């Protein structure tokens, strides 16, 4: 923990002092890399779960480490990617060189905020860090100097923070509840888990609902989702990747934690159906919106909403198996999404836009991006060989045990999702028109291609080979969460 903080701060300082883009970029590659290393180290050698840093405010357990692994990995690749990307966007005057520093500082701060949010054991602390992530990612979105971005960011800040206030109210409820039971109130997740079964169901239910509001807003669940597609489509590609990969998963993480507590009470079925309901709603709305979408990044953003919905459904089903696969799904989804956003970024620099009408002759100009988009699409709609196929199938399986109608509904939704993606990609990639005179090929740097390759390879490797360590990790998470 301390090391995390130390590394983070030092890198931050270095970034602030450093002048050239290159050093900043390298530094912000180093930070997530070191986090990755640290996390793996703790995962292997440290005794988990343990408290650390100042009494019982922070907890290191498998879930947090898992989430941090994902985030750090994505951040590393995003940093690697953003070197080339940001250069490109400076060239096309989307962004001025002066804001580079701000960008990287915010980038690293965001990583740190996310890390500590995951480590936080005290829910209020978690809440605060979540708020901080909102702040930093807001900066990252608004970094491009276009009025649209400001609109998107405002949307983001207002929707999330207003909703987050409600989840704070929920936390207060939990606090007084514990105070009522124990005398001294606590918001520490681990101690809450220990007494969860004694808490009054009614208030717990209320608290859950209130907290849900905020965290749902952070993870873009309908009807709190509006910020997500616009922010994702406006933000620079690496940021979009992080947003849909990590920031949303912060929200889901919060929901998981609270759900773990609430599921100890007698209100479990109510809460489960509540979650499933919201999950389905998000999926339906998102899918229907995707169906005639002309903006590539918006499409991908809405698909994030849809996937978050599916995660909620998986959580709501709440059997250990469903939870296991739902956790794996977060990873698979994060990676695939990131790859898609990266590819979209390349297209954006080629055509100065991600709208259908401006993109043409993709195979001629950007064969690499075209193929990575195809593969990413295959992955995201859960074709076999992709890592999403297994968790999807298994969660569907669990849903079938719950009710065949739920299964059928989900299947229909997935049909539409696949249709939306497929039709969009077919139209997009097979557009062959006379391109405007003087269009020259945008050379995506190697640094932009490598992350995509890494991500896709990981996704497709995980699709057919499920490492034992991951299996153990997920199992231990499930056992710690005591759900089901």
């Amino acid at each position, binding site marked *: 923990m301390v090391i995390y903080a130390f590394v983070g701060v030092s890198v931050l300082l270095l970034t602030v002092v450093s002048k050239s883009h290159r050093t900043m970029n390298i530094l912000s590659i180093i930070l997530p890399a070191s986090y990755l290393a640290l996390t793996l180290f703790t995962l292997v050698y440290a005794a988990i779960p343990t408290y650390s840093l100042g009494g019982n405010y922070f907890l290191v357990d498998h879930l947090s480490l898992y989430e941090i692994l994902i985030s750090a990995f994505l951040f590393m690749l995003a940093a690697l990617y953003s070197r080339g990307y940001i250069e490109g966007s400076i060239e096309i*005057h989307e962004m001025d060189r002066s804001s580079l520093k701000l960008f990287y500082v915010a980038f690293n701060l965001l990583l740190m905020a996310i890390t500590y949010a995951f480590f936080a054991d005290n829910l209020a602390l978690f809440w605060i860090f979540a708020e901080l992530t909102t702040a930093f990612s807001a900066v990252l979105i*608004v970094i491009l*100097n276009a009025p649209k971005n400001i609109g998107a960011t405002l949307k983001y800040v207002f929707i999330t923070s207003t909703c987050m206030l409600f989840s704070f109210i929920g936390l*207060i409820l939990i606090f007084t509840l514990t105070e009522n039971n124990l005398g001294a109130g606590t918001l520490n997740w681990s101690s809450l888990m220990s007494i969860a079964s004694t808490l009054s169901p009614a*208030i717990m239910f209320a608290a859950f609902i209130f907290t849900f509001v905020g965290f749902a807003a952070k993870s873009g669940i309908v009807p709190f989702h509006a910020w997500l597609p616009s922010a994702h489509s406006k933000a620079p590609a690496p940021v979009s990747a992080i947003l849909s990969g990590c920031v949303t998963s912060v929200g889901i993480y919060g929901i998981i934690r609270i759900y773990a507590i609430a599921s100890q009470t007698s209100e479990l079925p109510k809460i489960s159906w509540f979650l499933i309901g919201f999950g389905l709603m998000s999926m339906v709305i998102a899918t229907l919106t995707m169906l005639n979408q002309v903006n590539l990044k918006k499409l991908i953003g809405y698909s994030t909403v849809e996937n978050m919905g599916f995660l909620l459904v998986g959580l709501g089903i709440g059997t250990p198996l469903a939870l296991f696969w739902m956790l794996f799904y977060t990873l698979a989804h994060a990676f695939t999404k990131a790859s898609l956003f990266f590819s979209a970024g390349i297209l954006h620099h080629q055509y100065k836009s991600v709208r259908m009408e401006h993109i043409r002759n993709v195979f001629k100009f950007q064969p690499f991006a075209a193929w990575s988009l195809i593969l990413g699409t295959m992955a995201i709609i859960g074709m076999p060989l992709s890592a999403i196929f297994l968790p999807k199938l298994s969660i569907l399986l669990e849903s079938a045990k719950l009710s065949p109608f739920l299964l059928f509904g989900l299947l229909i939704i997935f049909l539409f999702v696949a249709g939306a993606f497929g039709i969009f990609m077919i139209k997009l990639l097979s557009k062959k028109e006379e391109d405007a005179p003087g269009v020259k090929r945008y050379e995506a740097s190697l640094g932009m291609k490598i992350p995509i390759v890494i991500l896709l390879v990981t996704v497709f490797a995980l699709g057919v080979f499920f490492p034992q360590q991951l299996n153990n990790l997920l199992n231990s998470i499930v056992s710690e969460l005591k759900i089901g």
Partner: protein
Amino acid sequence: MIIASVGNIAQILIVLILATAAVIIMKRDIRSLIKTYSFQSLLLALMALLYFVETGSLTLLFLAIIILVSKVVIIPRFMGVVQKRLNIKRDVKFHFLSPVTSLLASITIVLFVYLAFSSILSELNRFNSSLFLLGATVGMSIVFMGMIVVFTRKQTLTNIIGYLTMENGVVLFSLFLTELPLLIEVLIIVDLIMLTLIATILAFGIDSTIEEFHARLNPFHDSQKKASEEIKDLEAEQQ
């Protein structure tokens, strides 16, 4: 005896805070909105002080001080400066609800909140006295009223004030329900200030034309570039 009097004062304060919230909903002149907000925060601080007097827990004293410093002094000042620079006097356009209707709406909200909380909080032995329930309900309702402000007003500044009101509501709520650890209180305030800052910076972007935005944004970006050429580039890029 003292409890009773305290109770009375508390009730008065609560009602006053509710009233200020109503005023915030009604008012159109931004400067007076800011003033009302700081007055509301002042009341909140007094409430905290009152509790400190009653229970004598230092946390509350600190809380009062923090509120006094941040919400009564700093934020309103800041907002005032911003408002001057943007020179937007009034916020006359409304979405969805006119002030009157939003007041009516908030009455029903108060009712709902009361229903909900009276139904669940009754289990907590702290709620034997109606005062706490009243406080909690009012706090909650103020949160909602703030939200109404957020989504009915067009000007971003007003939205921010609405958000701040919500936050006050939360503090009131927490005051009546329980007392949180100091650290958390502090952090929340910090966080609040931060968000306000960002939102306000963005407000420049939305509430003013692009040129002004850049002219004003550059100091934040510590850039040496001339705004004008950027704008040229921007136009070039937009064509």
